[in-house]
């Protein structure tokens, strides 16, 4: 799996300090996102969700911008949370937990058109 940095990553990862600007390409090895062979983070980690986007289709930067806006932007209102829970095309990307709005790992690898659709349905700016 190919990854791309969509938000600058300037801090410590598994393999030491990194300073990776937006657009830098990375690769995944056995579930670990690496840069030039140095392990940065696991692909399911918080760091991965906030800084790195799947890029096999070349749409990683867009994907990262969309997932960040939806999952880590302005907190979802109660109405938006209800829409997320009640809309099948969205709730399959939410963790199996009726009391939480935590997007699952599939969300961060979702096709770009589905992410555009989710953003529109939730009214995320």
């Amino acid at each position, binding site marked *: 799996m190919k990854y791309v940095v969509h938000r600058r990553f300037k801090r410590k990862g598994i393999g*030491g300090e990194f300073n990776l600007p937006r657009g830098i390409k990375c690769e995944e090895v056995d579930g*670990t996102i690496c840069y030039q*062979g140095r392990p940065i983070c*696991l*692909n*399911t980690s918080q760091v991965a969700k906030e800084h790195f986007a799947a890029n096999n289709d070349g749409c990683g930067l867009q994907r990262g911008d969309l997932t960040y806006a939806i999952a880590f932007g302005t907190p*979802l209102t109660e109405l938006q949370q209800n829409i997320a829970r009640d809309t099948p095309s969205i709730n399959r990307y939410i963790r199996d937990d009726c009391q*939480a*709005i935590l997007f699952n790992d599939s969300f961060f690898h979702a096709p770009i058109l589905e992410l555009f659709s989710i953003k529109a349905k939730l009214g995320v700016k």
Partner: protein
Amino acid sequence: MATLGGQVTAFNNIKRTQQAFAAGLGGSGTNLTELDNFWGRIESVTLRASASLNDCSWDYISKVSQAGFADAIWSIGDRKGVTLSGTVGKDTALSGTYYCYILGFNHNAAKEGNNLIHFEFGFSALSGGTHIAFVDSSYDTIQGDTSTNTYLRMNKTRTNSGGWSASTMRNYTLNGGTKSFYAAFPADLKAVVKTITKYTDNVGNGSGSVASNVTATTDKLFIVSCFELRGQTSSGNSNEASYQQQYQYYKNGNAKIRKKHNATGTGSKFYTRSPVVSNGAQFLGLNVTDGGLTIYAEACEGVSPCFCV
């Protein structure tokens, strides 16, 4: 076909990673024995690519946390089962596995301490389940009991004087002797729980929203403040907002409401550690429908202990 040059590059990458990792865990990063010792950790990190937080030991979690890259391994909301045993307070008998979850990484690090994972109890299951608070047999009543190991409540009498710092909840129910939540923790977790600095109104007694009333305590176990939970100080000291941050877990929009740990179909009010500033009798809490609540300090309500590793 692989070349020798490629192998040398790969070897150097591994060596650099090893050194960085060893240095991150507090070693010099140059001693060969030290590097060999840490090689096992490198392998375990990479081999655990699919492993969940629940599969990792507290010792391992603690070392990664100290190394400063816990959020490169785990994620907010990840859960880990903890077997609690013993009686807390008057009659909260615990003998089962409850699931704590990650509230945030390096939360408010400048004021509270760096390289810490903040956890809260809890959930009733590793996946799905119910968001719970611990309760006792006198839930939502006011009791006259004045014994040291009293019911789950902020104080034994109707006062918020001394705020969080002087509370029975802090000094006995959470961090006290054999009938505290800390005492109910398993030994492997006790061994890695870190002391954390928390800022709260520690004066109370109806003295108003005074900036100097917000002071630091150092705690092993604590409960969230109103601002850490809701992102607003409500009827508490507005100056707490200058010293606290809302936890990322709640900032992400996750539900705050709880159910009773021993009756997961029934909602539970629960306490925060923030005193109400307009009177000397109440603390802030959350009701069962996600609304803010003022609670008389001697009322028995739900408790969700937090800790840092």
